[in-house]
């Protein structure tokens, strides 16, 4: 009976599997937000974009039969919501934090309204790549079922980090975020840069939503996101505005989220409420450990801030 069980070794394996399964929406939203914030704007509305992306991807996949078309539409919806945020923020005396909160509520509300008919039916799911073919242990095989979007997310994180550092385009984005004056001096249109960066950031968040509804957990309902978009925005600060660190932070968050069910499944059953809070405790602990009165918020774009 016990040949199927790995005992306590199941916990790190489950955390690895959890990191792979749960982290993808965090990766996409945090990378998107990272890009937006590097251009000097905060988009708190990504929670709404995530939920809209999830709903539209599910709806389109259901009606067309093609999950990848769903992902594409989710990205388009995210792009539009991002552009909307950027457009509103360009107007004089508009606060991007308040606009973001407004768009978050708008996005979730609209998704719930339009998503009503999609709660019941079953849409086709995105497939997975089986990276565990070499193993005879079913748990390892199960853990290494990797979705394409997860791989794309990892590539995007490194690509964005490289582009921000090494390309002219990346330089202009960073300049718009660090100093509007300097950007204007080299002839870049700050508003246009931010419009593009916010729109692309929104598109990433939309894809993250598509992952939620089309792969894991893989169905559309109104409790689907339960605040993941907001946590991902917070992860960007935690990751000090670096796309690659956003990736690590997302993986860490996914793994921490898997602790509670993993420990319960191997029979460590005491204190699961505490373990359920593990991702948040972890964030707090790392924030406290890495902050310092001398060099607070290193890496923060200069133009970024609630008070301007």
């Amino acid at each position, binding site marked *: 009976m016990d040949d199927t069980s790995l005992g306590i070794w199941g916990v790190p*394996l489950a955390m690895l599997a959890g990191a792979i399964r749960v982290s993808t929406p965090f990766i996409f939203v945090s990378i998107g937000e990272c890009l937006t914030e590097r251009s000097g704007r905060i988009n708190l509305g990504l929670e709404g974009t995530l939920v809209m992306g999830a709903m539209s991807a599910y709806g389109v996949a259901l009606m067309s039969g093609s999950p990848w078309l769903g992902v594409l539409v989710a990205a388009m919806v995210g792009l539009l919501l991002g552009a909307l945020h950027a457009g509103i923020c360009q107007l004089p005396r508009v606060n991007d934090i308040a606009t973001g909160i407004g768009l978050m509520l708008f996005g979730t509300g609209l998704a719930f309204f339009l998503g009503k008919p999609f*709660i*019941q039916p079953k849409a086709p799911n995105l497939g997975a790549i089986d990276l565990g073919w070499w193993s005879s242990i079913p748990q390892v095989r199960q853990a290494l079922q990797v979705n394409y979007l997860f791989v794309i997310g990892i590539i995007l994180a490194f690509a964005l980090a490289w582009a921000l550092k090494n390309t002219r385009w990346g330089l202009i984005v960073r300049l718009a975020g660090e100093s509007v004056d300097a950007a204007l001096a080299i002839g870049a249109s700050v508003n246009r840069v931010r419009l593009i960066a916010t729109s692309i950031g929104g598109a990433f968040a939309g894809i993250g939503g598509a992952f939620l509804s089309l792969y894991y957990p893989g169905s559309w309902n109104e409790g*689907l996101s339960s605040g993941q978009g907001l946590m991902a925005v917070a992860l960007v600060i935690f990751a000090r505005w670096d796309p690659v660190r956003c990736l690590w932070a997302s993986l860490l968050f996914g793994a921490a*989220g898997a602790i509670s*069910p993993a420990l*319960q*499944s*191997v029979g460590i059953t005491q204190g699961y409420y505490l373990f359920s809070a593990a991702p948040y405790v972890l964030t707090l602990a790392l924030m406290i450990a890495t902050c310092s009165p001398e060099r607070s918020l290193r890496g923060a774009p200069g133009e970024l801030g609630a008070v301007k």
Partner: protein
Amino acid sequence: MFNEFTIGRRALLGGAAGTAAFGLAATANAQKPMVVGFIYVGPRDDYGYNQAHAEAAAILKKMPGVKIVEEEKVPETVAVEKSMESMINLDGATLIFPTSFGYFDPHMLKMAAKFPKVQFRHCGGLWTEGKHPVNTGSYFGYIDEAQYLSGIVAGSTTKSGKLGFVAAKPIPQVLRNINAFTLGAQSVNPKITTQAIFTGDWALPVKEAEATNSMVAQGVDVVTCHVDSPKVVIETAERAGIFTCGYHCNQAKLAPKGYLTGAEWNWERIYVDMVEAMKKGQAPGNFVRGGLKEGYVRSSAYGPAVSAAAREKTDAAKAAILSGSLSIYKGALKDNKGNTVIPAGASYVITEPKLEGMNYLVEGVIGATS
């Protein structure tokens, strides 16, 4: 998560036209259809708790002379009072079913005092004579009887001897289900264990999927759940290729291969009885409880993976429960910490009030209540 911010259409209308409509409602008389109000805490089509109620409401709709008004996604706050008030004032409802646990106290009790001529019947609340108004009441089903039957099917089907239970919170109703499911399986093979995982809340899709997957990794091959919408658990388990038992309503469509059976509510029995009583001019029952025998709960039809032997065993146990010769909770019963919770020789009927305060998991359940 932003339910607090949405303002229902009814609430808006209620504020604007409440006073004007009060006079109209008062002139409604016997020729008009009887209006019954249903209030749900979540979406009506969640493959779960709310859908079970909404399906029963849809059956009431077909009764002649009955009009149904429904409102979904009403939070357990003062919002439900507004919903009830507008159902009474605008729609002329004379019987109201607030179906979620948190509606009972204080919201429904407050409205019952304000509208003494309207009947309120709440799902799951503990109505006490003398303490609560006479125009209120509560109804509930002993669904652990159906869970026991699911346990027998699961116990006959499992190969690894490990069952899984994704649960929301360790409250008595949930613990009764976990224990009944386990006891049913142990009636087939006493060595069977049930792995219980608590997610911490009623609707956390990612956690529910994660819990299901980590049980699959531990060799669990039949899983069931007690969360608001079992859809995610059932679909995840089907994808992982293991068997499932449903909860709340029939989820066979979500798992055509692995769905064994399920514990379902059968609210229409209660609702039809209550509406018929009202039409005769009587007040519906104040404290209505029942299980398989009363027809308030039922099992889903067996899935293709259920063996003939398992069907036979389950049908026999069902017949024994119906005749009253089988008691699910009987001594000597130990909890999973080794304490005796039901002494040897004792046997509880399903209505036993001690069971309503269950705070333990029986031997063979891997999990803790805190």
